[in-house]
């Protein structure tokens, strides 16, 4: 992480990036890495489908944070556009995912993934 915290000149397009004193890029990246890890661990240890799905959303938001942090650091719009696309896709995924979850709940009345064992893993 020390390598990330280098300070390089901020003379891209006019004004320098508005930064909170003492909080540089590496803090944001560390936070998003922690969030992503929490999401991954959650997907692995949670047994309820809805909780697993929420952990996946957490992973996607960690990615969004990374994009926004870089975009604001570079004063570049690319990362922010990417975040819009990720959010749209996540919404579409949520719609389909909840539909699938409802279909399985109607047939089985349980959302515990350990019950999903007709097909052996």
């Amino acid at each position, binding site marked *: 992480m020390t390598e990330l915290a280098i300070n390089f000149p901020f003379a891209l397009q006019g004004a320098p990036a508005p930064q909170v004193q003492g909080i540089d890029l590496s803090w944001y990246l560390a936070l998003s890495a922690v969030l992503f890890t929490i999401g991954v661990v959650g997907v692995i240890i949670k047994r309820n489908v809805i909780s697993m799905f929420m952990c996946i959303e957490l992973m996607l938001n960690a990615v969004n944070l990374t994009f926004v942090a870089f975009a604001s650091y570079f004063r570049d719009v690319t990362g922010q556009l*990417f975040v819009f*696309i990720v959010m749209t896709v996540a919404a579409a995924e949520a719609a*389909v995912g909840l539909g699938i979850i409802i279909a*399985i709940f109607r*047939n*089985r009345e349980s959302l515990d993934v350990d019950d999903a064992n007709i097909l052996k*893993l």
Partner: protein
Amino acid sequence: MNFFAVALQAGTSPDINFPLILPEMIVCGVAVLVMFLDAFMRRSQRWVTGGLSLLGLAAGAAATIWLWTRGAGSLGTFNGMIVLDEIRLSFTLVVIFVSALTVLLSVVWVEGEHLPAGEFHSLLLFATSGMMLMASGGDLVIIFLGLEILSIATYVMCGFRRTDLRSNESSLKYFILGSFSSAFLLYGIALVYGATATVRGSGVVAGTTNIAQIGERVMAGDIMYPALLFAGAAFMLVGFGFKIATAPFHVWTPDVYEGAPTPVTAFMAAGPKAAGFASFLRVFIFGFPFVGAVASASSATNVHDAWLHALAILAIITMSVGNVAAIVQNNVKRMLAYSSIAHAGYALVGFVAAGAATDATQRADALAAVAFYMLTYAVMNLGAFAVVTLIARQNDRRTEVEDYNGIGFRAPALSFTLSIFLLSLLGMPLTAGFIGKVAVFASALNVGSSAPAASSLYTILVVIGVLNTAISAYYYLRLIIVMFFRERTTEWAVPRIPASMALVLVITILGVFYLGLFPGRVLDAFKRKPASGAVTQIAR
């Protein structure tokens, strides 16, 4: 990716060239049309949507061939978002072929199961447009979008038999693990975007998600955060590894393939895998290219070496795990799922060869070999699944190996065609599977002979590939033996073969022998670069 930024700064019109995305637009438009038509049509006319889908796919294929032979003025558009090269075109043709056969496979099936045909066909077409975008994306954002269009449509198709618990479970597992892997891929993209920033003069140039630009910066050693580049490449490797079902990331495959309706399984084993390979190849071979002995580019060379070795190991594990696990399966769909994992491993050998190639012709040969492999796999796999669909009957009831006991001489048309497909999957000479394997393995040996430093690696890869082919003989031949040499104890009526299914079987049988006996034309076509500048740009 800086589409708007460039347009605003330069004050010019943005770089738009619609003919270049004509195939994608056609397929997407027909998908919307099918969806609308379905809403206003009576149940008895539902075959119309299948016919319309086929027409749309044929038009998409024609547009692709037109792009290949005539060109559309430039080799890239939308500021590098879409590229036109031989990988895009060959893989686009493969996925269109897969979808067209899936439509034929599903027209009768979807009626017999009392499922909404129009919805199924429009989802299939949307998935196809996603796959085509994955093959044509020159920017990570397009590849991500294509992947999600494909995945979301496929999640629904897996769970299409809503009242069947197996189908529900399959779609749930695919959904959870698919979006999990998408998140990995996305995190990799974010890290690569941050890593590829460079310093120019006194200013910092922002990172990029354009694959060609990433490749240029890696080549020049112009990377601000090499460590992040490594992490990003690793995350993307995991994400793509999930999608094409390479070995440590393959656990979802057998469950999802077994539970999904059989025509959907046929589609998933051939189409998304080919599209996944197209974007995987493009990102890693052109985004993290071979740098050679440039002194300033030590970090960048390392990223190439790292992914090449990781993929070589993945190829070995994938081939072995797929084939060994397939031996113990008692369900035919599950067995074919493990076989599809093994085939992804064989194709990865060609991928490694393409990555290791030091000159352009060798690389083009290896890339064409992978595309050709995907085509041969699509042909024989769809044929095999067509027979499995027919034997499974309604609700996929009969998919166990015992259900194939002694059907050999009772239904000779089905059992002989299935035997041909199984022998082709095994890689018997004269069939497509043999030439596919030869092309992939030969490209690996070629690369090995011209790179003496690590040539043993490629030899080992090929040797393990051939050994695995020998292992796979067990389970492919076992099914043939079960069909012909086992007694049938239970009642069994010969399934009726509808015309559309017969057409699928004829096309795939002809394909297996055509690609097996005269592969030269297709292989040469896949190597041909698209024409550029032949047509003046229309919408500039």
